């Protein structure tokens, strides 16, 4: 056993307080969150498993059963944008589990005893979704191009931005949920599954909601995801001026604003 060699530190951290800024704190948290992904880029593929199954196994069924009956024509032009939103729903909504894990192991507690702003602990984590989602969306699009999916450049960039905003919102809600159920962690997946499927089906991701009964259409209209899915379809197909784009942007923006507000509030109140 080697004896401890004495690293002699200076106590500058205390005598000269470094200027703290929310931006710097957020960047620190974001960089920390991204590091494991950068070390292991393949990990972004794992949370794509479910969307890929929907794409590979549900997509062909859609084509066979509905075919040209779909609004917007070709199946992939209709289904791929929805899958992009689905990535955010399936991926970003699970990130709370990472925080839950860090609360159990003690890493989160350690960070609470540092000078990092509480809000930065949430915002930094939530912003990570932008990076993850963009990488995943690009991957899906690249895979689908050989199958006949066509992309409009400007629309695609805006579509990515829309996804990113939505992802920050859903991610924040997921963290807020994790913070709320931290003493009963099994509740996390219970709530997650309970919320996930109604949101998905009632957004018209998988099948056009127009074919459903009136009550379903009413519920779909109350679901912010419906507007994001519609907007994503318009954008990806190059229809940038469609009214649905505006409504989608509003829905995603509200989700993000509300999610961040709830998330930051939960983070500040944790002990």
């Amino acid at each position, binding site marked *: *056993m*080697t*004896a*401890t*060699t*004495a*690293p*002699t*530190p*200076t*106590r500058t*951290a*205390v005598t000269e*307080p*470094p200027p*703290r800024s929310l931006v710097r704190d957020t960047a*620190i948290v974001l*960089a*920390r969150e991204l*590091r*494991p992904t950068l*070390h292991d880029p393949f990990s972004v593929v794992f949370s794509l498993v479910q969307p890929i199954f929907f794409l590979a196994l549900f997509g062909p069924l859609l084509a066979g059963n509905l075919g040209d009956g779909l609004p917007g024509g070709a199946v992939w032009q209709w289904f791929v944008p929805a899958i992009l939103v689905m990535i955010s729903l399936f991926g970003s909504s699970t990130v709370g589990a*990472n925080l839950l*894990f*860090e609360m*159990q*192991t*003690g*890493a989160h*507690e*350690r*960070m*609470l*005893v*540092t*000078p*990092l702003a509480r809000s930065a602990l949430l915002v930094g984590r939530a912003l990570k979704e932008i990076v993850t989602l963009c990488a995943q969306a690009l991957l899906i699009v690249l895979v689908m191009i050989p199958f006949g999916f066509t992309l409009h450049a400007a629309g695609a960039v805006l579509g990515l931005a829309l996804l990113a905003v939505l992802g920050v919102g859903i991610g924040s809600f997921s963290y807020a949920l994790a913070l709320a159920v931290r003493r009963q962690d099994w509740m996390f997946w219970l709530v997650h599954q309970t919320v996930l499927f109604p949101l998905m089906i009632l957004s018209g991701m998988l099948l056009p909601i127009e074919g459903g009964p009136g009550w379903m259409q009413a519920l779909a209209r109350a679901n912010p995801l419906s507007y994001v899915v519609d907007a994503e379809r318009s954008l990806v197909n190059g229809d940038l001026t469609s009214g649905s784009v505006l409504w989608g942007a509003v829905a995603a923006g509200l989700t993000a604003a509300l999610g961040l507000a709830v998330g930051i509030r939960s983070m500040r109140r944790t*002990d």
Partner: protein
Amino acid sequence: MIHTEGLTKDFVVGRKETVHAVRGIDLHVERGETVAVLGPNGAGKTTTMRMLTTLIAPTAGTARVAGYDVVREPAQVRRRLGYVGQGNGAGHGQRALDELYVQGITFGMSRRDARRRAQELMDGLDLSGKERTKVSDLSGGQRRRLDVAMGLVHAPELLVLDEPSTGLDPQNRANLWEHITALREAHDITLLLTTHYLDEADTMAERVVIVDHGRVIADDTPEALRSRHAGDRLTVSTAGPEHAARLAAHLEAWEATTQVELRGSTLTAGIAAGSTRVTELVRAADAAGIAITDIQVRRPTLDDVFLNLTGRSLREAGTAATEEAAA
């Protein structure tokens, strides 16, 4: 470095039930001291640490840590404090060196300083070669040393360690303490630790604060606690019951012993200033023709101190409920 007055924490656990985890603790730790807080599970040790480290707010009372109030100026306290909680400070999904680096950046170091400091600590705590290893792939002992390193990155004035060695095997415990002792000597850090290992409190701390049911029941150097709250224990084996009985009668009359108990040919007794009186005892026995076959003087442990103070053994006294409520 730490001054608390009437520090109190209640947890409301049910509609009508409140757990009084900490009931008015006055704790004073001076700069450079090493103080161990000792007590059974549920005594309020962790809750106290969590209040001192700004993780939870006290229900009543005040605490000043490194000159700042934990409730009014938590940011100042956090800047000056190193904290090693019961869990792993380093995130399991991260690489060891990355977490140390991030901790340095977090405390305002430049990238270069943070990188240098992280590597220094990796080397200093025997973690060289594990820089790129994921925290979850480290052994328990390595992970704990990394946690201690995390607490030291910003060269804090005060290091708070909450059960640093729990769950480690004896070898790893000894190894961890060797490192902590060396670091303490090198940096004149004030150290506050909780433990339920008696030997640890005994050998590491200059002062031991014993808590039970949320209160401080004793606070002194291990040596003083022992001599005040528990004396040495004498065990004498003799050639036979008759010898033992005669020796017992002899000891009863001797002002240096208390609680003389006879068991067959062996007798036990409390003895003041034990080791210095043994020769006297042997000489007296010899003169009386009592044949002694074995003689032992046992120094009291902190468990004896706890037993004398509370009537319970520290090992049995644990009540999980309050500690869980505090988690």
